[in-house]
């Protein structure tokens, strides 16, 4: 039953049966209801009854973000629209956006997963939960807010406040639970320190970190500086929501919601399953009704641990995410597709694709993005006001297209050539490196 957390303690044998049943029913469902999967399985000559256990997952085709976008709007729906109560839209590198629908039940499951993790973190109805996430992560905020509210906690959702004011609210309203990204958490901590606020002045007890990998060093810093216990959660919005996995009290690996997803790790190049090593996380959402996904490639690199955790839970665990296997870049918890930037530039330059470097710079704990564009006769204008306007317009377009602001810098070709020669169009640089390059 969905409200039970006993299921996380099932024996490995019971998981085998459970997963076989879940996998078969979701494959049967998509085969009869989802045109995309029906066509794909027929093309590959796969009958759903060939899926006799979880190992047979490998017979099934993968689902990518491109597939989702290319089959916009209806081809992925497994239920009639009248059963759907919410639709989320996502940017994609393709011509159409990605659309994911949810039935009432799908949303309940997502909320339940968040509540289950909150319970493990010790979040209680008496708690005051402050969510500080970028507007680009508004969907995450929304779902976490709903979960905390249904627990009965007081929630302060993200408002467009300055960090200084957020700290003020945190102190004056005695926030006990902070939900944010690790980098924004560190930024808030630096502001709190400036104001002379530490564990004694603040009431924080639990920190829930999302969107980025929580590094050990940062975890220690946040726990010490705020006087809280840090937990990280992992999720992807296309499937299962913000809390597909969470850290328990005994392990820094994250427990997967094995009662709702069937996870695998694959080699992103050969696409073969990997059982004991790092690879791309692939998930099958077995209980999802509106848009069940078969072998969805998350693009996140991690490793699955199958043994029983010290806490007694038998759910498989993933390591904190080690990176991406595709061209998506995670900036402050927001996933940015470099392919999309390329398309934007080509569109902006009327078919011409200038050489560019996507620079992610760390500034006061937060990452800022810059787009360095090599000036060449095709786009360069000798008129300074004209060039200025060209840059501003591109920045505006970028914000609209990608959903996050960016600084556009015209640079000489030789500045970025060393990176492009090494096939790198994304680089992480600090202020010193940037200064020495631009001088």
């Amino acid at each position, binding site marked *: 039953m969905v409200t039970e957390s006993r299921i996380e303690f099932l024996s490995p044998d019971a998981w085998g049966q459970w997963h076989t049943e*879940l996998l078969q029913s979701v494959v049967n469902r998509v085969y009869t209801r989802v045109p995309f999967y029906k066509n794909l399985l027929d093309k590959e000559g796969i009958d*759903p009854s060939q899926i006799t256990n979880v190992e047979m997952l490998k017979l099934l085709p993968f689902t990518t973000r491109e597939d989702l976008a290319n089959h916009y709007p209806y081809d992925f729906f497994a239920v*009639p629209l009248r059963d759907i109560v919410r639709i989320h839209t996502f940017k994609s590198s393709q011509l159409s956006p990605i659309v994911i629908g949810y*039935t009432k039940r799908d949303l309940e499951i997502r909320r339940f997963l968040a509540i289950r993790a909150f319970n493990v973190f010790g979040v209680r109805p008496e708690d005051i939960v402050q969510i500080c996430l970028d507007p680009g992560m508004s969907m995450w905020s929304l779902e976490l807010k709903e979960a905390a509210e249904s627990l009965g906690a007081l929630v302060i959702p993200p408002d467009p406040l300055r960090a200084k004011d957020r700290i003020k609210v945190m102190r004056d309203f005695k926030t006990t639970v902070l939900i944010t990204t690790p980098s924004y958490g560190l930024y808030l901590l630096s502001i709190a320190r400036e104001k002379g606020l530490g564990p004694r002045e603040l009431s924080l007890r639990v920190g829930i970190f999302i969107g980025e990998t929580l590094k050990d060093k940062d975890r220690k810093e946040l726990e010490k500086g705020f006087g809280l216990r840090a937990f990280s959660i992992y999720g992807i919005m296309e499937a299962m929501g913000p809390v597909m996995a969470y850290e328990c009290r005994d392990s820094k690996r994250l427990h997967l919601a094995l009662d709702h997803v069937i996870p695998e790790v694959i080699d992103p190049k050969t696409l073969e399953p990997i059982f004991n090593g790092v690879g791309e996380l692939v998930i099958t959402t077995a209980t999802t009704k509106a848009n069940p996904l078969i072998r969805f490639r998350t693009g996140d690199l991690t490793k699955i641990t199958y043994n029983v955790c010290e806490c007694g839970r038998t759910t498989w665990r993933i390591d904190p995410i080690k990176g991406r296997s595709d061209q998506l870049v995670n900036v402050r918890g927001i996933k940015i597709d470099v392919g999309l930037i390329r398309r934007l530039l080509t569109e902006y330059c009327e078919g011409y694709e200038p050489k560019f470097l996507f620079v992610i710079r760390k500034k006061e704990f937060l990452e800022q993005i810059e787009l360095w564009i090599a000036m060449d006769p095709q786009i360069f204008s000798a008129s300074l006001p004209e060039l200025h306007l060209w840059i501003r317009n591109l920045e505006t377009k970028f914000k609209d297209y990608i959903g996050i602001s960016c600084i556009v810098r015209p640079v000489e070709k030789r500045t970025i050539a060393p990176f492009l020669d090494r096939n790198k169009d994304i680089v992480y640089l600090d202020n010193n490196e940037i200064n020495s390059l631009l001088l």
Partner: protein
Amino acid sequence: MLSIQNLHVSYGPIKVLKGVSLHIDQGEIVALIGANGAGKTTLMSTISGLLRPQSGEIKFEGQDIIKFPPDKIVKLGISLVPEGRQIFAPLTVLENLELGAYLRSKDKKGIKEDLDKIFSIFPKLKERKNQQAGTLSGGEQQMLAIARAFMARPRLLLLDEPSLGLAPMVLELIMDSILELNKEGLTILIVEQNAIKALEISTRGYVLETGRIILQGSSNELKEDPDVIRAYLGKDYEEITER
């Protein structure tokens, strides 16, 4: 308690079950729902050994029972109440019940105890214990069929369409008695076209559609599932964009 994996059953060239997997834990009431012809009765008959599957696995308490004959399966503790009751009409209620305990006819004391238990759950049967079973009403016959299965002291009771042809009032009685038997420690798999009724008394459920399980979950969630409601009301999926 019972776990089934990848069960394939055919009647001649017609495939009825196409890789069904499900499980029942000790003490549960599990409902199997689906339209006419989905394969529900076939599944029940296969578990009780009346039909031989083409392939698959049926394990009862860890033991593979797929090749066992029906009597051996009853001895292990699985009793079937077939669709349409099939009681012995010329025999009395009591004789029917005693026949149910045929495999343990030497256990006089146990039989007596079970009869008392049955008569407390189904007082109507006590009233009519010397009456010919054929003269009972439909509801009473259904009670008798369930009671007779209970007399074999099963640990798992398979109920095939207990609501068939019963008036709503009588149906309530039958459902209550099923819950009562479950409280006595009996694990129950119930197959029903009357999905809502079955989901009301069960803890979990599976939805069978043309020989395949397409959905499972707690009975509460299934009861509210639009797919289940539609299937029960007989609507289809043609208009996927309709809202």
